[in-house]
């Protein structure tokens, strides 16, 4: 199965006195579409930042295909693509110019770079806006550009942090369709608080609340009951899904 394996053992991260993530045990298998759910402030973004190597863990271990992002961030980063909550893009650059930049900093050059940009433009239907400034794009197009840059180097792991946040229903469907098309080609780690999005895009998920793992298991099972909101609060007893030790 293509994709990367992510494994966290007793992973925790503290900011001063506050524990953003506490002793998390989690495994994401290669090629899996995995959802990380939880309310705002549950620790989802902290987990993602630990996987990308943007933050270092306070204790515990985290590996991507056996490599620690804390110790070897560049080795891990070369294998991942990252789409963030807000479209973190450069508004003064044109779409195609930006994609060339994204390919360039991932080490693609010459013909490989041209081919990667052409594929990204085609895959994410950016033909009509390829010469436009990013600052002049709609949010939906901007998020497609963000997805295109994350996938331009064909990474084994794609991390999407609330990629449809702030989009209208049509734009949301476009982005979800693009993510769904990647299923099976690589590992997808999707952070969201949108339950429908989690149901449609992921096969397995975990729910975090205040930095603690509440439950993990097949998405259909975890989100089957009527206690989903209570799960987000961390107050409901988990049902059939796997209960963390």
């Amino acid at each position, binding site marked *: 199965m293509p994709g990367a394996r992510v494994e966290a053992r007793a992973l925790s*991260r503290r*900011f001063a006195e506050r524990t*953003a993530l506490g002793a998390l045990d989690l495994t994401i298998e290669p090629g899996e579409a995995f959802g990380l759910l939880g309310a705002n402030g549950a620790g989802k973004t*902290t987990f993602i*930042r630990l996987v*990308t*190597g*943007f*933050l*270092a863990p306070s204790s515990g271990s985290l590996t991507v295909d056996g490599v620690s992002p804390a110790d070897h961030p*560049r080795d891990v*980063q*070369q294998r*991942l693509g*990252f789409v*963030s909550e*807000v479209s*973190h*893009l*450069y508004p*003064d*650059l044109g779409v195609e*110019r930006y994609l*060339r*930049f*994204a*390919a*360039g*900093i*991932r*080490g693609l*050059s010459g013909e490989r770079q041209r081919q990667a940009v052409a594929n990204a433009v085609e895959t994410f239907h950016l033909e009509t806006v390829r010469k436009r400034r990013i600052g002049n794009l709609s949010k939906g197009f901007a998020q497609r550009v963000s997805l295109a*840059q994350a996938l331009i180097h064909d990474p084994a792991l794609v991390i999407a942090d609330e990629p449809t946040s702030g989009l209208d229903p049509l734009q949301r469907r476009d982005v979800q369709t693009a993510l769904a098309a990647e299923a099976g080609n690589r590992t997808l780690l999707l952070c969201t608080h949108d339950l429908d999005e989690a149901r449609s895009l992921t096969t397995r998920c975990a729910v975090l609340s205040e930095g603690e793992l509440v439950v993990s298991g097949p998405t259909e099972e975890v989100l089957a009951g009527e206690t989903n909101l209570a799960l987000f609060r961390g107050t409901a007893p988990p049902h059939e899904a796997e209960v963390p030790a």
Partner: protein
Amino acid sequence: MRRLLSLMQKEALVLFGSPIAYGVLFMVALVTAVTFFEHLRLYNQILFVFASSTMGGFESDTIPTHVNLIDTVFNPVMEQLGVLLIIPLPLVTMRVFAEERERGTDELLLTSGLSSAQVIAAKYFVTYAFVVLMMTVSFIYPVTAIEQGGLGMKHLASVFVGLSLLAIGIASMGLVCSAFASSQVVAAASTVAVCFIVYDLGWTHGFVSEPTAIFLDALSLRLRFGHMAEGFVFASDLVYFAAIACVSAALTRLSFELRRALG
């Protein structure tokens, strides 16, 4: 290397995609021209006074030796330009790191496989290149006229190197402020404050012992630039400016590490 070049290209595009770069280039060129022509006008007035019949005219050796293009026009213009750089340069450096953080694009850069050293090198290099371009633009008027006044190419080159290094020193401090500041405005304001303090530490003489005063003088930007403005390029001055650049880059890296550790 390919990654570094891609980032440098992007930095240049973002820099010149913003009106601030053009505004700063125009402002520095304009202020240099105005300052230069104002001193030239004063010089001509002095010459006129000495040349009048009551003073004996040009041909009677009555013009003091210190009334010449270099001492009356060039040196004062360069001195003023050195101080004036403290105002526009922070407008260029404030955005380099602080804007990335405000937009959230720093997270993309630092998770794309680029090392923090590569990010810092690319940003510093493009900023320094812009600073040298700015100095070239501001140097055109004085050079054209003073070259006629017999300053000599070696002296001109020394002044140009001095001005460029002074600007690089100020830009380096601006980049550190940008790396640590929470916003672009804070970055610009703190750069101006730091540079005004460090430009000439002579103001501390009243509060410190003599050895400390000598040490602080050695840290002043003005002293180092002053040597080159007079046509002398000392190795110690080159080391001084190189040290500012290296310490700034190290502090910038520290800001990255702190963010990674503290969040």
